[in-house]
Every structure is written in C-alpha cells, then in structure tokens.
C-alpha cells in the first residue's frame, strides 16, 4: 500500500492542473468575450477615424546599451511612425560600443544646451544632443545605470504628457502608436496602456518595417510564437477588462508621464521593472482610492526577436521568473488588501500560485511520478493518467489561445502558418515545456537565495529581443 503522502501529492498535482485549466480557460472566455465585442469595433476600422488628428503628444523613450548594429535602423523606423505629434528620446546608457557615434553620424546630432530636468534621480548625464535634421530626435548620453535608469533619464527629458517605452531593437507596426494611445483619448483615467508583443523570427523586416509576416523554420522560435499568443491572449486580454493587468511589457508600453514621475520612475533594483512598475501603479491608485485604468490594446503590435539558442532562452526564462517573484514580493501588501479589488484578491494570488509557484509543482509532478514508476510504487495507468492530465492541460491552453487569435486577429495569414502552430502545440510538450519548467524553478530558487541575475547577451539577427517579465503562460 502506498503511503499517505503519495495520495496528498496526487491531489496536489490534480488541484494544480485543474486549477491551472480553470483559471486560464476562464481568462480565455473573458478575453474571447472582450475580443468578440472589440472585433465589432475593429470592423469599423474601415469607417472614418473619429480621433484623426486629435492624438496627444507622445515621447518615445528608447534605452540603448551596445546597440550600434541596430540603433540607426530602429530610430529610422520610429521616425517614420504614423503619428501626428511625437518626439524620440534615445538614451545611450554608457554603451561600450559605438552606439553614440552611430547616432551622431546617421542623424546629424549636435550638442544641445538643455535645461535637463532631474525629476527622477539618474546616473550622471554626459551630454545631450539634438538632431539638426529631425527636430523631434533627442539623444541623452549618460553613465551606465541599467535599463530602468536609462528609461528614467528619457522620462526626465520627455516633453510630452505620454511616454512610450520601447526596446532599442523593437519593430513597431506603423499604426501601433495610434492604436495603443487610443485608451488615453477615450478615457482620461487611463494611466498606462500596453500592446501585444509578437515574435519576429522568420518575418521579413526591411528598413525597420514588417514587410511579410511568417513563422521561423526552427521549432524553438515556433513554440515561442505559441507561448506569446497564450501569454498575451489568455493572460492580458483576459485581465484587462477587470482592470487587473499586472504587466505592461517593457518592450512596448505607454504611460502618463506625471503618473510615472509621481510613482518615482522605474525601479533600478528589480530585473522585472515593467511588471514592478505596473504593480506599483495598481498599488498607488487602489490603496489611495483613486480611479484609474490600465488598458491593453491587443491590436497594437510590436515585433521582437525571440532567442533561438537554449542558453539565451534559459537566461531569459530564469530572469523572467525572478522578475515576477521580485515584483510580487515587493507589492505583497496588495494581496487580499481590502482596497485592492480584483488586483489583490484575484490577479496577484493567481499570478503567485500559477505563474510563481506553478513550475515547482509541475516539476515536482514530473520528478515524483518518474521516481514512483521507476520504483514500481504506482501503476502505468496512474502514470499515464498524470501525463494525460499534464499534456491535456497544456494543449487546451494553447488551443484556446489559437482560437482567440483566429477569432480576433488572424495575424498569421497563410494556412501553412496555422498548420505549424497546431503542430507546435504538440511539439511543445515533448521536452520544451519540461525544460522551461526547470529554468523557471531555477529562477525561483535564485530569487529565494538572492543570487545576482545578469541580463546576458542576446545575439541579434536584426529584429529585437524582449525585456522584462515574459508573456506568461
């Protein structure tokens, strides 16, 4: 007879997988409802735009560290964005390569006497340059202080009321900024708005523009396409209608400048500064009883390059997990706070249990079940039932995200893309999922033991990489 702890473990695994499915299917249903309603509004895109010419000014903040290979292309692409009133502030965060030289050469940057506001404390500024060719382009050269410090330096130099934070190598679709800013026009209570991040590997990008959407030939990138669909569709579209979105991606998010300044700017002490800031905004507004909205605009798209090597992917996933836990821990007083509403009573606990601790439970499940079957403590039927449950839940979450993608967006136009994504749903469960569960557990361990996490290098092919905390499940 098997010991009692085994029965407890079995129920724990069961509760985890059933809970996981229930939470994400519920979120998917909320997202589906929201996307269905919005698809009707999207159908109106062919009608004249009611907000044309009325968009508020936006400062695009681009933190750049050792980006000499891509920075000129990125800035060129940003300069051609379809938006009536914007400026670009590139912050050279003490790059060791020729990032600043490239900017000076390509955009005729000239030293500029600026009464630079030190509203947020940042590392020393070495110089400020303004383009003689593009009056809306400003470069702030400063000592290295990390991504958050660079973004804060850009916020200090921003002149517009809205700041859009993007990665130095992100590729925005031409109309993305117009779309992501829409919530600010329609609802003055909006303090932040995020867009969807999609994987650009395999896509044809030329002069900073997405020319043709495609899916990379490698399965590592293909599975990440699916992961991003799951993370953004099931997670973010689902949480947004409840005003409980816990992360606006650092790769593409717009914030009200005064709100960021009031909140003290991006934290330089966390590796997941985007999630930390989003949670801080929730805490600031909810606990002080102020009305606010954090919006998500799924059709505002930013393209980014995903890692195609296991080493880079491992670094990214451990970093994301650590960032997630840091943010949840920093804002632990939101949990079940009487004033925290859906954020404190639903989103934070779900995030902790499913995304934070979930990898440990899942890993434990794989290890324990394997050991038990090896020791002949459980039957093959039990082992099979566990695998069926684990794979079934993974497949279902992917299928629901794919369904939502098809209903609302249909970004991947060719039937071949659909076939690849359907196949990726299956392939993901054959090793990839188990690896990421392991990496995320390592990230959790690193957070618990306070080990330093370095960003690591991301080899570029000309598109971009994702910063901050990942898309989630």
């Amino acid at each position: 007879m098997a010991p009692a702890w085994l029965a407890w473990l079995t129920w724990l695994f069961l509760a985890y997988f059933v809970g996981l499915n229930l939470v994400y299917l519920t979120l998917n249903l909320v997202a589906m409802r929201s996307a269905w309603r919005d698809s009707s509004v999207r159908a109106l895109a062919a009608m004249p735009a009611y907000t044309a010419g009325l968009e508020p000014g936006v400062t695009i903040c681009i933190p750049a560290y050792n980006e000499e290979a891509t920075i000129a292309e990125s800035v060129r692409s940003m300069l051609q964005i379809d938006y009536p009133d914007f400026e670009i502030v590139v912050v050279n965060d003490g790059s060791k390569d020729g990032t600043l030289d490239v900017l000076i050469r390509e955009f005729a940057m000239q030293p500029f006497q600026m009464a630079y506001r030190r509203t947020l404390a940042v590392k020393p500024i070495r110089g400020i340059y303004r383009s003689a060719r593009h009056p809306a382009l400003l470069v702030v050269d400063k000592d290295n202080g990390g991504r958050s410090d660079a973004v804060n330096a850009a916020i200090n130099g921003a002149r517009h009321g809205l700041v859009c934070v993007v990665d130095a190598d992100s590729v925005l679709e031409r109309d993305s900024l117009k779309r992501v800013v829409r919530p600010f026009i329609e609802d003055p209570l909006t303090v932040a708005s995020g867009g969807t991040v999609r994987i650009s590997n395999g896509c044809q990008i030329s002069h900073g523009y997405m020319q043709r959407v495609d899916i990379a030939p490698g399965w590592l990138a293909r599975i990440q396409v699916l992961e991003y669909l799951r993370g953004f569709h099931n997670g973010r579209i689902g949480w947004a209608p409840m005003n409980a979105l816990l992360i606006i991606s650092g790769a593409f998010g717009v914030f009200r400048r005064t709100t960021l300044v009031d909140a003290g700017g991006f934290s330089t002490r966390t590796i997941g500064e985007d999630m930390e800031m989003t949670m801080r905004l929730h805490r600031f507004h909810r606990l002080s009883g102020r009305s606010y909205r954090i919006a998500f605009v799924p059709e505002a798209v930013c393209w980014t390059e995903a890692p195609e090597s296991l080493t880079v992917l491992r670094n990214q996933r451990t970093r994301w997990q650590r960032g997630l836990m840091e943010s949840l821990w920093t804002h632990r007083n939101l949990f079940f706070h009487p004033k925290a509403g859906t954020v404190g009573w639903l989103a934070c606990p779900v995030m902790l249990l499913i995304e934070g601790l979930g990898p440990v439970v899942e890993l434990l499940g794989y290890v324990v079940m394997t050991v038990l079957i090896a020791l002949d403590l459980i039957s093959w039927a039990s082992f099979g039932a566990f695998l069926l449950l684990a794979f079934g839940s993974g497949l279902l979450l992917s299928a629901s995200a794919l369904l939502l993608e098809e209903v609302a967006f249909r970004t991947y136009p060719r039937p071949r893309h659909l076939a690849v994504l359907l196949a990726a749903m299956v392939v993901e469960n054959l090793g990839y999922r188990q690896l990421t569960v392991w990496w995320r557990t390592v990230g959790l361990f690193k957070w618990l033991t306070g080990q330093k996490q370095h960003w690591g290098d991301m080899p570029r092919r000309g598109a971009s990489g994702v910063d901050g905390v990942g898309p989630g499940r």
Partner: protein
Amino acid sequence: MFDTISDPALRLAAGVGATAIALTFAMAAAVIAMRMHALRLARRNAATLATWRPLLARAAAGEVVDVPHLPAAQCLPLLLLWNQLQESLRGESHDRLNVLGERLGLYTLARRLEDSRSLAARVLGHATLGHFAIASDWQRLDKGMQELNTPASLAAARALLRIDAQAAAPHVLERYLAHSDWPAPRVGTLLRESPHEAIAATFVQRLIGGSLYERLRLLPLLRFAEVPNIDSVLDRLVRTSREPQVLSIALRQLHGPAALADVRKLAAHQDPLVRSAAAQALGRIGAGDDHDVLLSMMSDSNWWVRYRAAQALLGMPRMGADDVVQLRRTVGDRYARDMLDQVMAERGLAAQGRG
C-alpha cells in the same frame, strides 16, 4: 499500488486529461473551419469591391450606369464601400450616390441594420442614414444616440447633425454632458463638421452658466465649436473662474488682450499649471511691461513655468538678437539661465532647419 488507494484521483486525472484533449481537438477543428470561412469571405468581398467600386465611382461622376444584380451576400460589403465613398464626397456627387444607394436598396438595408444586435451593423446603419439625411429618421436616430454604447451613439449623433445641425446641437451637447462616455476629441470632430452658428449659442450658454463639471467637459470643445467672440467668453472665464483646471484651459486658448490685467495676476497663481498657461498667454498678448513678469517667472520652481516663460520672452515682438545676448548676460539665476540656453538652442536649431 498507488491506484488502489486513490482511485478517485486517478479517475479524475484521466477524466480531466481526456476532456482537455477532446476540447483541444474541438477547438483545433473550429480554428480550421473559421480559417476556411474567412478565406471564402475574403474572396467574396474582393469580388464585390472589384465589381462595385468602378460602378459607384462612375455614378458619383454623373454617368448613367447599369446596375447589375446584387446578391444578398454582397449587400453589406457594398454598403460599407458606399459609406467609404460618401465620406469623401460632397455636393452633387454625394447626392448622386444617395440616389443610386436608394435604387440598390441600401436605405432600406440601413434601416434594418438599426435594429441589429451587432454594434458594427448599428454603426453602419446610423452612418448610412446620416448620409441620406432624411428628416423622418430623426426619432430613430435620436433613440440611437441615447443608447449607452459609445461608437453607436456617436454615429447616431453625427447622423442627426447631418440631418439638421441647428436642431440637433442642443441634443448632442445634452447627451455629451449627461454621460461621460463620449470622449471630448470625438465630439470635437462632430462639431467641426457642423455649421458653427448651429452650435455656438447653446455652447456658450452651457459654458458660462454650467457647473464646474460642465465647464470642464465643454472647454476642450471650445476650439471646435467656432464660437464668435471667443475671446470675450474666455475673458469672462479667466476673470470669474477660481478652478485651476478651468483657468489653465481658458488661458491656453486666450488670444485677445482685454484680459491682460487678469493674466498678469494669474502669473503668480499657486498652481503651476495656471502659471505656465499664464506665461504662454503673456507671450501671445503681453506688452513690453510684461518683460519683467516673464523674467521673474523664469526662476519659478516648476520646469514648465520656466520653459514657457523663456519661450514667451524670446518670442516677444521687440526681442532682437542683441537683446537676447544682453538678457543672457544679466540673468543671475542658474535655472533661468539654463532655460534661456535651452530655448535659444531650440530656436537656433529651428532656424537651421528652415535654412
């Protein structure tokens, strides 16, 4: 064995797993079916556009066209195309497309869409009735404007303004003030499309006599409403208002010198939003005497007040290059000097760009 002590757990695990996989298959099948449907729909819409776009263009240009049979499946894409064209047309061309639309049954179709549960259909219906602008649709559209759905109610409001702007303006403003769902910029575009005399009287009445909420809702629309004697309205607001939000919005739009004395007083207001708006206003309407006021504002604790004051000062009519150099030399405050340097550099770059 494990399964002898926890059979219920085993059964539940297998059941949930099997259900999840069955649901996955069902969803995958739905995705494939939807993709095939979408491809068919795209082909049909492309065929509709290829047939009807040149026909509508010729009809709008005044040619007599033979109208082919319109299959039911092409009605909605055609209605959308017709609306897109109507948006860019005025006068006779617009009227000709109305005639053709009526022949094709688009007016009847639009009235049917008014009762649809689909938001897109209702918006399309309202927009179409707005183009036909038939007075008998007033009640129907007025009802549509009262619904608490932003795109649909805005489309109905636009249609009402097209039918009779004079009569619709008070209703539209009433609806705007009664519910907070209409964003000011969208209402602004509606007002801009309408004859201003239809809007102005109602607008001013509510702006002056309304509550703080009403004034704050209406002020951003002022630039769209094309109110005659706008400066006298703004003067009055600057003179009589106490609320910083109202004051700053009014100051930003002020162009007449009548309120100059009040603007000077507001340059020392405790709210930096009002002070920076006052600095901007002084730059537009100020006189030589305001040089010193702006100079002292350049030492303000707020960056924006300093910036606006420096811009205003350097933009004043009698401020020549020598005066600027002299000013730079005499300014003692470091913050004021830094700001002066920035604004001078900006002007230098702008001049370089123009050159």
